[in-house]
């Protein structure tokens, strides 16, 4: 008897097998449950493969999208539908970074505890930090050109304006023929989040930061610009003849000759180190949505490529949101408050749900002393040059840097403007890029002016 009784314990292997196997399932459920519920046959949240629960509103509670069974409602204004398309997303899931797609689980109110059960059956509301009014202004200002506009509060991290063009009306999805048109190139990509561009002169901010910390005599140096310089038998041209100038004026005048020299003094490794440290080469997250990382290739010392890489040409690529975050860090004494797109999830009966999107996170990108000097120099750019343009002089603490990124394929350059307001009441950091438009001061800067004007600063 005892012999057989001992043999029966072998059956407990089945118990162990069940526990082990189900343990694997539980582990997968915790890791991947949110992916499983967004399977479009899930009729608790989808009807005919289209999300059927939840809403998206802007910072003022204005409706941007409302999903229910068989009916999808978007903003009543066509302009708002166009300007918020990439932030909100589309019903077919083409714009993967739109909150409707990326945060579908939040719209259905999914949690690993409660599943997708919704007491009212209507799901949750995602409140975006975006102001539809600012988005509309930026979209209008882009005037049919491809580009990206970002403005965010560098104290709270709230993204106030995020526009990517080209765009289309969510009520009229693009036909396959339309997608062939060059006008709609990359229409499903949110350029603010998922694209990287050649930075041109705005990369001088990185080179300068590296120079401040690595060239002790920087502020005693005098640069001589004759409109061009020769490095390794190749010519680097400047936008104008700057003559003899110190680092302040070299930066304000965006002198390529001076920065070509500085890049040689620093080396490619140091430039790479700073591009990395300043957050341009990392993929951080904006409300969980991953931002595209930029790239920087280390060129050999003494080569013309090294000089070009310090001026933001060569193989340099940056993401507009990462650039804005760098501006935010400079404005905020070196500490970047990470941008966030979602300010909260509103559950049934208007109950706020979870703290996940309500908290801010920070990252120090540079030493506070360096940030103070950089802020001073960016401010000097405005007082010495930019304040003469548009209404920039009217904005308190206006600081920034324009850029014009030359294209290798001979197309018109990208126009850039990035900066911030050094003003405690208006802690705004911003970046504008207009693709293949021309000179940054002419193409991108007016859009900055329009948004800041719309903010009533």
């Amino acid at each position, binding site marked *: *008897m005892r012999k*057989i009784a001992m*043999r029966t314990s072998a*059956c407990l292997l*089945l*118990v162990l097998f069940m526990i082990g*196997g189900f343990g694997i399932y539980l582990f997968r459920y915790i890791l991947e449950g949110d*992916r499983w519920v967004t*399977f479009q046959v899930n009729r608790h949240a989808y009807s005919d493969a289209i999300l059927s629960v939840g809403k998206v509103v802007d910072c003022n509670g204005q409706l941007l999208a409302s999903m229910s069974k068989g009916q999808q409602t978007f903003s009543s204004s066509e302009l708002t539908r166009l300007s918020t398309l990439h932030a909100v997303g589309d019903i077919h899931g083409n714009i993967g970074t739109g909150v409707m797609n990326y945060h579908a689980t939040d719209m259905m109110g999914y949690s690993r505890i409660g599943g997708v059960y919704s007491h009212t059956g209507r799901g949750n509301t995602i409140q975006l930090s975006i102001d539809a009014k600012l988005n509309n202004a930026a979209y209008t200002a882009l005037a049919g050109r491809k580009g990206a506009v970002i403005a965010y509060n560098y104290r709270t991290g709230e993204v106030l304006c995020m526009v990517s063009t080209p765009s289309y009306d969510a009520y009229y999805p693009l036909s396959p023929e339309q997608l062939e048109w060059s006008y709609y190139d990359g229409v499903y990509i949110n350029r603010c989040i998922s694209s990287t561009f050649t930075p041109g002169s705005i990369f001088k901010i990185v080179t300068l930061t590296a120079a401040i910390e690595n060239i002790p005599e920087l502020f005693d140096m005098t640069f001589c610009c004759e409109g061009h310089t020769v490095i390794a038998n190749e010519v680097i041209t400047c936008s104008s003849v700057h003559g003899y100038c110190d680092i302040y004026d070299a930066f304000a005048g965006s002198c390529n000759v001076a920065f070509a020299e500085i890049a040689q003094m620093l080396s490619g490794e140091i430039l790479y180190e700073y591009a990395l440290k300043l957050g341009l080469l990392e993929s951080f997250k904006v409300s969980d949505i991953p931002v595209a990382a930029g790239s920087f290739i280390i060129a050999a010392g003494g080569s013309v490529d090294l000089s070009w890489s310090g001026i933001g040409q060569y193989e340099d690529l940056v993401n507009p949101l990462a650039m804005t975050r760098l501006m935010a860090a400079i404005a905020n004494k070196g500490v970047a408050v990470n941008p966030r797109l979602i300010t909260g999830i509103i559950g049934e009966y208007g109950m706020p749900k979870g703290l996940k999107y309500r908290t801010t996170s920070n990252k120090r990108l540079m030493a506070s002393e360096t940030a103070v000097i950089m802020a001073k120099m960016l401010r000097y750019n405005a007082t010495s040059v930019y304040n003469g343009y548009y209404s920039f002089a009217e904005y308190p603490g206006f600081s920034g840097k324009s850029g014009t990124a030359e294209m290798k394929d001979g197309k018109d350059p990208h126009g850039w403007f990035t900066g911030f307001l050094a003003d405690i009441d208006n802690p705004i950091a911003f970046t504008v890029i207009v693709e293949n438009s021309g000179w940054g001061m002419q193409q991108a800067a007016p859009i900055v002016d329009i948004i800041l004007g719309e903010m009533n600063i």
Partner: protein
Amino acid sequence: MFFSLQEIVKQELILLDGEHSEILRWVTSVSRILIPVVSVFILSRIAYSLFKSKQVPECWGYFNLANGLHIPISHWENLIGRARNCDVIMNFPTVSRNHAILMRQEDERWLLIDLASKTGISFMDKKVKDSVVIDYGDVITIGGIEAQLVGLTLEEKQRQEAREVPGREVNPALTMYLLTVLNILLGAQLCFAHPANFTFLIPFGFLIAIVIFWGYSILMKILRRSGFEIEQLAFYLTSIGLSVVTGSLANGAAVTVVTKTLLAFVIGLLMFLVLGWLLRDLKRANSMRWPMAVLALGLLLFSIVAGRVVNGAKNWVYIGGFSIQPSEFAKLCFVYAGTATLDRLFAKRNLLMYMILTVAIAGALAYTSDFGAAIIFFMCFLIVAFMRSGDIATISLIILAAFVGGLLLIRFKPYIAYRFSSWRHAWDLPHDGGFQQARTMSAAASGGLFGVGAGRGWLRNIVAADTDLVFGVVVEELGLIVGICCIISLLILLIFSVRSATHGRSTFYIIAATAAMSMLVFQMILNVLGSLDILPLTGVTFPFISNGGSSLLVCYSMLAFPKAADTRRLASFATRREFFYIPQRRKTV
């Protein structure tokens, strides 16, 4: 009259849903939390009752040795010898490792069987050839050592009667009340899930189940048995299964789906009682083995002759409007045929006939292409073979042979290979090979811990959702906690059977109980892990829960085996009370 009343209630519900939908919402929102809470409560009470008490072994007499040793005889079948895993250990060099078997006879006498030991057994100064019948008080010589078999004194019998009775610590009535509450909650959820499909059968189905549950408890009270945790576990699983089939009704299925389940439940319970009664008498039970073996094979041959092909397997037989799966009944017979008393385990080639039966069954199943059943029969065979032989080398060889056979099968039956190809890749092919698994996982994740409410899921609309994917339906509608409770219920049955083995009266009961419960757990493993893409999907039912009359009926019958192995005092109706009467030919020492 009846139908007009039903129509009135239905219209009222539709009106309520339209005008005061908030009320219906709150019923779901509150009950979806209560159902898992009640489930956990029920299960923990049952588990506590089953495992808390220290099991005091039964005692049938003593072996008194010349050196003063007083060895209790705690089973009907005892192995005597020098080895440490003998039941009566006689640690003398002249005694063989496995020397003899002492078996209790129907007439209170004992049969002593010599296991071809070197030194043999002597009785009345004569060498025993094979076996001898002895009474209490008789002195025998085992390997030259004198031993006397003595019966229990009156005082010892009273001590036996004073053993702990289950049900003292955990009142079974309260568990029954909780089961009642669970059924009421499930019924309420289903009445409100789809008012347009309301029929009285939805609440009545649960009402009938509650009446049967209580009827059974009252029967046990009359029989003065207080341990029926095993049945309560089955009742719990049946309630969950009932919510799955009633959910189909609430979603517009025909009423027969519920009536069939209730009918199978009642017949299953009756078969359980009949089989349990049959097992009380070991001699009677033992004599049924051969007929059962013949029946197992006969049932499978019957499905070959009269069966219809459904979903690629020829395993359904239609008789007078009822569809029956003979292979389900064959499982029960196969377990029965496989079990054996201790003396048979020491017989030469004790497994040979069973192996022949298994091969014959495997052939029949291959012919009907019932791959799922084949793998379950094979598992059962492995367990029985191991318990009867204890020979790991042979078992490993059999597994290896089966593995090769399986590979050949995959080669010749391409649809099986197709199932394997999508295994672990359900999310790569969610509309093709991983169709069912991806949907099961999506639905199960949607349910979270508490589910979306009985009858409100969508997985049930997928083909075979109420059988092969039933675990997904349960988790989607009732939540992960209830799903885990269902798994634990079956694991408890198996663990309890293994635990009972130490105190069982006969290996007949022990082998049957562990083999039957292993079979149920194995089915659950294939069902749950298959639908969740952790094992290949084989299309096997979840015991007690999956929709299917034959399966439910057989699951209940299987429970008779652990009942017969449960020797806690006054626990099981399938275990005869033996201490009531004092044997007449008892000789006191």
